[in-house]
């Protein structure tokens, strides 16, 4: 473990995981907002909105995230000149957040849509029968119940998002996968302890998160 007793390496390890957490936090918030909007579009009565939502989901769910982030960097930043910060690291960070959010939003949208599907159709029909509009049906009857059944998928999406944050390393951000790569390069013979430390940190962060969401989902599940 002499690798991590060197303060320089330890700092790199900590800052690598801080980037991961920051990427996850910001992207989760953006993806949630964007995903809810997209889901609302996908179930709306307006055909063009439905088409837009479906198009978004089909494009981003079927493109490798590496390519999406690649586009954010070489398309938005390099070609179109969209610079988000003078600081190189922050610029990479925000471009990474854009890529992760647009990609994850597609999954959030689909989770919400299938959550809506779990609400028995009779309820929506009853709501309409007593004269509620589309927006009212969605807001008062369907979404509160759907929200409970999307907790488990949201947990999976959040966990995947945290792991996906490592892909922002492609555009040069020194997050944990890049830090691990560098350390393995310099300490080739300690490759196994290095991997176990990084993988173990992810496991320590994410396995409890998974159980928490499982517990929450069970607790809040709509009993039918």
């Amino acid at each position: 473990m002499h690798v991590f007793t060197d303060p320089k390496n330890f700092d790199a390890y900590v800052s690598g995981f801080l980037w991961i957490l920051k990427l996850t936090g910001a992207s989760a918030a953006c993806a949630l907002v964007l995903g809810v909007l997209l889901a609302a579009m996908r179930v709306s009565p307006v055909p063009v909105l439905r088409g837009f939502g479906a198009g978004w989901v089909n494009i981003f769910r079927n493109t490798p995230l590496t390519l999406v982030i690649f586009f954010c960097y070489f398309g938005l930043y390099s070609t179109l000149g969209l610079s988000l910060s003078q600081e190189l690291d922050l610029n990479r960070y925000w471009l990474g957040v854009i890529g992760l959010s647009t990609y994850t939003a597609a999954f959030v949208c689909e989770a919400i849509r299938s959550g809506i599907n779990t609400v028995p159709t009779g309820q929506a029909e009853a709501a309409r029968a007593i004269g509620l509009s589309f927006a009212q049906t969605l807001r008062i009857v369907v979404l509160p119940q759907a929200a409970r059944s999307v907790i488990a998928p949201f947990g999976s999406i959040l966990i995947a998002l945290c792991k996906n944050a490592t892909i922002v390393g492609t555009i040069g951000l020194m997050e944990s996968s890049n830090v691990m790569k560098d350390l393995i390069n310099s300490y080739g013979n300690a490759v196994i302890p290095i991997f176990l430390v990084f993988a173990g940190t992810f496991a320590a962060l994410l396995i409890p998160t998974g159980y928490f969401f499982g517990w929450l989902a069970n607790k809040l599940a709509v009993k039918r």
Partner: protein
Amino acid sequence: MRMKRMAAVVAVAGLAVAMAACGGDSDEGGNGAGGVVGKAESQKKLIIGVKADQPGLGLQTGSQYEGFDIEIGKIIAKGLGVEESGIEWKTTVSANREPFIEQGTVDLVVATYTINDERKQKINFAGPYYVAGQDLLVKTDSTLTGPDQLAGKTVCSVSGSTPAKRITENHPDAKLEQFDSYSKCLPLLENGQVDAVTTDDIILAGYAAQDQYAGKFKVVGSTFSDEPYGIGLKKDDTAGCEKINEILKAAATDGSYKAAWDATLGKSGTPAPELDTTKLTHCGAV
């Protein structure tokens, strides 16, 4: 019926695993005591690690590789008695050259590989077959003339490479953009997000000479380091290293070194350099 299908899936999967095991076996052997010389003699085969994205030096064009490093690799293979058809080229990137050699993924590395003390602790070097120097590639209209003007400027390089480390150590006031290959730096230079791309002059010249960038970039031309390019091989393979040095000596006199240059980097009109055989490494011997 269903069970049969299920059994079939499992069986196919098992077969794939078995194939995996076989595939692994064929890579074995040859990394034994004999070193490179032994493997070349017994198997008539060599795996050479090269760059895939450096025009003029090592560029993968479809299924082929071309460039000066490739030609040097061919000269060495020939000297070891291996036919061109017996060479397997393997793409390496800057960051995985030492592991490739240490683990025996490749027998040799000829990939713009600078000889330095840090690397010598892990592997052995034959050569150098060329001495490059770190330089800057800038836009044609740029006023940058050397590394001392880099303060506040953004420079692009490859993570883990010697040029990138030199910039962080000697020019900490420059901002560094890092990727896994130099080819990703070029669009950034073209679009103005970075002020310069830095690595060895010979690599930069290769990019500047590519058709699509003709007239857009120039190499500054004030090198600020010596980068003797070596041929990497296993640390304990002293015999292989000495043999390769002999092959290089012969190549310097019989014209094959010059031919290799003229067929690749020399195309731009630069005359072939002299291969200074007095500077060849001692192969780890003191």
